[in-house]
């Protein structure tokens, strides 16, 4: 397929701006050759097509990523130097992905706004220690594991004193009583 045809194919597949999650639809049709063609026509593509194309890389089976590593990296390098800021940012984030399977988190030097927003938010995060919005997995953890991950939990605010236990306490006692009676009877029989 010539470079022009490849560009047209990509446009047909990824050109829609209504669905910006459709990158993965092209995964099954990618190959080493196709990626080489894509690299040649990359500069002619529309920015959102470029971004979707790169995001499709995340959905390629790992085995193929290993095989196509250098082609994928070539495309990402072209993207990093793109004039569209979204394209270059996505390229930058994915830079390490073909080689390591992990995303690049060293982005501060490449984008001023990213660095500015990140540093503002970092200050805010440090001040939010007492907020205690716990990660969801915390409910599953034994006490020791919980303390090891997030530190001691604060006691809830005491909104009142309890002058007596609610009815539930009596019920609990009754249930345990019944339970032990049943256990005794079972033993006897």
């Amino acid at each position, binding site marked *: 397929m010539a470079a022009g045809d490849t560009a047209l194919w990509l446009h047909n597949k990824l050109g829609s701006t209504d669905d*910006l999650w459709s990158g993965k639809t092209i995964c099954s049709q990618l190959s080493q050759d196709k990626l080489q063609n894509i690299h040649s026509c990359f500069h002619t593509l529309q920015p959102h097509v470029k971004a979707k194309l790169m995001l499709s890389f995340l959905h390629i089976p*790992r085995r193929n990523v290993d095989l196509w590593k250098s082609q994928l990296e070539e495309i990402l390098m072209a993207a990093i130097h793109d004039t569209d800021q979204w394209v270059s940012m996505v390229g930058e984030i994915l830079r390490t992905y073909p080689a390591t399977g992990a995303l690049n988190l060293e982005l501060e030097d490449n984008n001023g706004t*990213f660095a500015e927003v990140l540093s503002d*938010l970092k200050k805010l995060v440090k001040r939010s220690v007492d907020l205690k*919005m716990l990660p*969801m997995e915390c409910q599953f953890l034994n006490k020791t594991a919980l303390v090891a991950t997030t530190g001691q939990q604060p*006691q809830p605010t005491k*909104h009142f004193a309890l002058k007596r236990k609610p009815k539930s306490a009596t019920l*609990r006692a009754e249930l345990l009583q019944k339970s032990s009676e049943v256990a005794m009877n079972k033993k006897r029989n």
Partner: protein
Amino acid sequence: IKLISDAGYQGEITSVSTACHQIEVFSRVLRTSITTFLEGGMDVMEKNLPEFTKMVCHGEHTYLYSQVMMTILAQEQKGGSNIRRICQELQKCANERGLDVTPITLALSGAAAYPRACQALSSMLSKKALNPADITVLYKMYSDNQYPPPPVDLIRVPAFLDLLIESLFKMNTRLNPEHKSKYIYLLSYAASVTEVYKKGVRKQIEKKELKPTTQALEKVQTLCAQNKNASELLVDVSTLFQCIKFPVIAIGVLAWVDEILSDKSYFKLNTDHTPLHLVLVDEIVTNHLLLHQKALDLLIRLFENSFDELDVLVRLELKKTVLDRMVHVFSCGCVLPVVNYIRECHNKQDTDISLIRHFVSEVLDVIAPPYTQEFVNLFLPLIENDGITGTLRSEDGNDYVSEFICHCKANFVTT
């Protein structure tokens, strides 16, 4: 738009596609949202989450960018766990919208260093279903004595833990007995193992609690899977109470109880005043602060159930029993969410007033000063409402209702 953004009016940029067009504008809108969450906490986040999700999930690139930004922030020693929660809420919402975000989640989780574990997890998370082959891969890696296991964080993925709970505690999932112990092992491992890191290097893996957790989980899972009725289970109550002390088991039991109670015939056939399964919910609430909301959600679902098949009076009695559970949750420290819910019920006017009265009178029966202003603000309007508490008052003012009102008037600024 960029000019509006440069001038600092992020709040004015409401159209999603406008905000997402330029990376600078998007970044600042993102900053505004995260700032609001960090300043307002869970309640504010829950309220704004739909709008936030809509913006972040505009495209896969905006989602990727936001998650990368937040992953960096989540690494902060102090306060980072708050951001981790936002990341997770976002993942969950994206998932619910049918978006496949698993590759991004895993690429950001550090799983890449363990390609086999990563592949096994990714296949299960993408399909939202567990399978014996992938479970076996993970089990082997985490139980291997020769090679060091992957970090425990890798399997501490909420969606994965939920799937394990579901497989072990829901009736409709038929678990192959041959593989069951692997599911139990992985869940126990995730719940109990701690790791010590120094400068990013894992120095120690502490597995002291792994065995007791696994044993207790096995015991309770077997009990739950036997499909015994309440009277058959009576003899096992103390075992259940013991084992429920492990949070992961409490979550499993909640899921199991939830399913049993949602069976229409349950309350029709049950003759106990308070069924055993509801007492188990009480016990979970007593033991686990972090599960209060989950338990309350279950009780709310139950309370709002129509119970058409029951006689009106029986239905009211049953709802009172459920309210008693809410009073229990309330007495254990989950105060504002419970009172808020009852107020909502009253405002919507779809709840029988005698039920609201029952709740209020049970609460007045157990509480004593000192109260907080927040609590008084929420609770006093219910107490002052004549429709609710009129019949609870006596002429001489010697009753809990009058006493509460008197106390509040004397000690609080009431509006």
